[in-house]
């Protein structure tokens, strides 16, 4: 129950579309979405396959609570092998697309093979057909969205699409749904484009039913909505300032990576903060932020709807950016702002709009621009390569120029599309790349927040804050305060966060609920909705199983324990900002204990005991 119990399989080689029952035995072990789709990926693909070849598969998956009234229950994930990292990719998105897919009667879509010609998939309830994308291929996400809406004639059609960056082979392209929500990380959009799939459009009118105990479910949903409303972060901070509530907080503690992580504090942080987004501008008296916005079913509503200053240089003659659209979230504002040294709020918002319109992950994009700036300042990249643009830290013009070039894959934009690791290798300075497993860091400096160092190093999809957000504990004191400067106890903290988050990501709920909720708040909703008995213990066990399954996939794909590492800069170059002065990330004080807690070997390999305990395949 709650699951639609149906999988849509799309063979792109021959255009054959079929429906099959969801494997409920796996659902009982892996829940849905992230966990369950990874189980399918493991079963059906060779982990050593070329991520951009026809043997890789791409799965769009919902969770059992997606499409229900559970607060934030609108999530879906895109699961595939990443072209950026060579590891498993799982990118989670909100908006309305996931709930619409569920409402059409599908738990997941599995794309296999590669279409001979560009196509888009049109789903209306139980009918699905591949349509020619001739005329749509080559368009931006926003243009494609408009074109497909014209074809379906239904304003309620929800669309997920890839932009021109993905078509051009940018390795960190996102799948963008509902114009500005992103399954952002690890290049899942690049994989979709490699299969010649431009977009998926879905209209669902069947709804989500089959709730095990409707009365108990509605009661639990109502109770847990109150918990979110009464919490200071989810009830006040996030609706008012969005995730951007963090910009000044993280800067003040000396953990805001700046200028490609050369520093840990940014002078201009306030100018690109959530607070700055509320300040009226001189030109039209309006603030950057128009309103907050919710994803499907979400009672937090942290989303930002913003405009760019009409007098700003970036949007002259560009009508598509002169209206409201998805505004800055913290990670994006950090990557394209602090990490590039740019404190021009409108330039950063412009780059964000371009990332949405042309489907790039703003974290990887911003961090790659930051690496390019360091390469430029070191003389490794010159105006000869860029065609005249000076890539200097702090240059808003350079940032907005890079966004447009990468969005279309034009000129030097092609190099920027390689991501930080390959870009730095190409220009002879691999040490400038601030990445783990090839994926760029997000917005928390592990020299100032030790647990995040272990989080990044061990994340199954490369550097990522969402796999175990120990910032909650180390900075915000949720569920309890730990000292961000110490490594003691962080191995256990990271493991606990990783396992719980894997469960959250598999149910269809948003990880931002965890500022207020723990699994204690989710299990009753899950249990009332879904067949079987769902306790906190069972969810945690499933989470740990999922973590090990992802790890196992990565090991089979050729990664090793040596990939659980951080760039030298974070291990050896001490922070210079006062609050964290002298600190480096002491990863190697935490990693052995972490392996031990996981029950892995000293080299980070899974043991037979772990495989048996979680009944892992193969």
């Amino acid at each position, binding site marked *: 129950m709650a699951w639609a119990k149906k999988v849509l399989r799309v063979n792109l080689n021959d255009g054959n579309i079929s429906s099959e029952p969801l494997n409920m035995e796996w659902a009982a072990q892996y829940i849905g979405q992230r966990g369950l789709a990874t189980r399918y990926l493991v079963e059906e693909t060779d982990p050593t396959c070329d991520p951009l070849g026809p043997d890789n598969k791409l799965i769009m998956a919902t969770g059992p609570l997606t499409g229900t*009234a559970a607060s934030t229950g609108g999530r879906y994930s895109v699961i595939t092998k990443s072209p950026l990292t060579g590891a498993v990719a799982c990118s989670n998105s909100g908006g309305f697309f996931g709930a619409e897919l569920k409402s059409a009667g599908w738990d997941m879509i599995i794309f296999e093979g590669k279409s001979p010609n560009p196509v888009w998939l049109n789903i209306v309830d139980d009918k699905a057909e591949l349509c020619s994308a001739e005329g749509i291929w080559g368009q931006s996400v926003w243009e494609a969205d408009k074109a497909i809406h014209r074809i379906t004639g239904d304003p309620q059609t929800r669309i997920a699409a890839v932009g021109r960056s993905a078509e051009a082979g940018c390795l960190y392209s996102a799948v963008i749904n509902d114009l500005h929500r992103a399954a952002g990380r690890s290049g899942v959009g690049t994989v979709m484009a490699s299969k010649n799939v431009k977009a998926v459009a879905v209209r669902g009118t069947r*709804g989500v039913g089959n709730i095990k105990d*409707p009365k108990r479910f509605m009661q639990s949903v*109502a109770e847990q909505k109150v918990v979110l409303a009464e919490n200071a972060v989810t009830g006040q901070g996030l609706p008012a300032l969005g995730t951007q509530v963090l910009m000044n907080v993280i800067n003040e503690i000396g953990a805001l990576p700046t200028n490609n992580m050369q520093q840990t504090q940014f002078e201009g942080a306030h100018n690109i903060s959530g607070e700055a987004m509320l300040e009226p501008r001189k030109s039209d008296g309006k603030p950057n932020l128009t309103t907050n916005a919710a994803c499907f*079913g*979400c*009672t937090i509503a942290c*989303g930002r709807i913003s405009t760019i200053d009409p007098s700003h240089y970036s949007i002259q003659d560009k009508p598509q950016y002169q209206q409201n659209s998805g505004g800055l979230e913290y990670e994006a504002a950090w990557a394209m702002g602090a990490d590039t040294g740019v404190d021009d709020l409108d330039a950063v918002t412009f780059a964000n709009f371009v990332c949405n319109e042309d489907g790039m992950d703003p974290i990887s994009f911003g961090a790659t621009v930051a690496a390019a700036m360091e390469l430029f300042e070191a003389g490794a990249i010159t105006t000869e390569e860029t065609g005249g643009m000076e890539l200097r830290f702090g240059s808003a013009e350079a940032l907005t120029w890079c966004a447009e070039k990468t969005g279309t894959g034009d000129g030097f934009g092609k190099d920027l599309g390689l991501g930080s690791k390959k870009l730095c290798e190409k220009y002879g300075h691999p040490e400038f790349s601030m990445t783990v497993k090839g994926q760029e860091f997000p917005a928390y400096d592990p020299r100032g927040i030790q647990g995040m160092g272990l989080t990044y190093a061990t994340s199954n999809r490369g550097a990522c804050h969402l796999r175990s957000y120990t910032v909650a504990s180390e900075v915000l004191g949720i569920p309890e305060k730990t000292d961000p400067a110490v490594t003691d106890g962080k191995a256990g903290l990271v493991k606990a966060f990783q396992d719980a988050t894997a469960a959250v990501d598999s149910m269809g709920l948003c990880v931002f609920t965890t500022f207020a909720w723990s699994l204690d708040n989710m299990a009753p909703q899950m249990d009332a909705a879904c067949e079987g008995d769902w306790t906190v213990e069972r969810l945690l066990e499933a989470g740990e199983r999922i973590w090990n399954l992802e790890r196992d996939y990565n090991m089979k794909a050729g990664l090793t324990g040596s990939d659980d590492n951080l760039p030298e800069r974070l291990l050896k170059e001490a922070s210079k900002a006062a609050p964290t002065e002298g600190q480096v990330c002491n990863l190697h004080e935490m990693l052995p204990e972490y392996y031990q807690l996981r029950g892995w070997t000293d080299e980070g390999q899974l043991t037979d005991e772990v495989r048996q305990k979680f009944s892992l395949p193969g």
Partner: protein
Amino acid sequence: MQRSLSIDPDKCTGCLQCEMACSFENEGVFNPAKSRIKVFTFHEEGRFVPYTCTQCDEAWCMQACPVDAIKMNFQTGAMEVSEQVCVGCKVCTIACPFGTVNYNRDTGKVIKCDLCGGDPACATACPTQAITYVDSDATGLEKMRAWAGKTDNAQHAAS
């Protein structure tokens, strides 16, 4: 006291909790496509607007119905469709100037807001009080209060 739904679009975040509550209450599934209240998104303006039946006293739908399937519930003031009587002719959907009566192809009848018999699920589910269920004679009270606050000259002079 008779009560009405009061809608304040400025408070709406577009989360669709109201649509899910409505469809669940009336159809037993979470299905925005079958909701009697709809949230419209005006993306380029950054606005979300919930919209549903306002229960007109001299309701066009009621007057147009050839089989008297729409009647006022005198307890709640809601115009209610009797499923037994409705023949699915859809004349009411043409008569309603606001579009808030709609046909349901699954049942062959029309559906519209009936205030859930006096305890509207949408208002209960709304997390931001964009939809409230208030005294019919004072639907403008909160708006008046907000504007009254803005006309306090003494306070402006002081600040």
